[in-house]
């Protein structure tokens, strides 16, 4: 079955530390990849997405992600985190599901806490 794995469930970092959140998916075909973020008290919102082209994708607030097809990975990175990055981060895959349909599969999320 198709799945998305986020290996880090909770991450605690100090401000200015570098961040890398792992995301692996299991699907052999063409996929679209997303990272969504949910700040405390706010809706889920898009951080960045990859559809095609340059596998290094830049998103909002200094985040970037790299699509490595051979590793089925789409890891999220930020060189220097801020206290305001405290949030829950979700990796998602959009994959074809036959007959012209597709489905979204979300990972279980990673809760990031940044200490001031």
């Amino acid at each position: 079955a198709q799945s998305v794995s986020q290996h880090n469930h909770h991450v605690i970092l100090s401000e200015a530390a570098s961040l890398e959140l792992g995301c692996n998916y299991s699907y052999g075909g063409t996929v679209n990849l997303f990272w969504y973020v949910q700040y405390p008290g706010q809706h889920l919102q898009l951080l960045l997405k990859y559809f095609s082209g340059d596998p290094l994708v830049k998103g909002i607030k200094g985040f970037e992600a790299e699509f490595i097809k051979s590793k089925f990975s789409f890891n999220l990175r930020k060189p220097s985190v801020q206290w305001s990055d405290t949030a829950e981060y979700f990796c998602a895959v959009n994959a074809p599901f036959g007959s012209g349909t597709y489905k979204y599969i979300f990972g279980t999320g990673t809760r990031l806490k940044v200490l001031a």
Partner: protein
Amino acid sequence: EAGVTQSPTHLIKTRGQQVTLRCSPISGHTSVYWYQQALGLGLQFLLWYDEGEERNRGNFPPRFSGRQFPNYSSELNVNALELEDSALYLCASSFTGPDTQYFGPGTRLTVL
């Protein structure tokens, strides 16, 4: 531009009851998705509607159903509620196709 709206915000029901949740998509969006977010389980895909048709559904029993209206708003119905149905139910909308989803604030359902 108004975002995705959901109602009600909170609901408390007892086992065996039925519930209806509502979602209004962003203007111009024709696709509506429903997710269940239970503690520690991430977002579980429930249903996808596009242009009034059910396009796909997740691995949930038939007591989870819904529909999409001509104005693209949507309802999620859950019959014969069970304790494990307690969760945050999120609605998202997008343009047709595998595009970015825009999420609403969710409806918190508690089943006692």
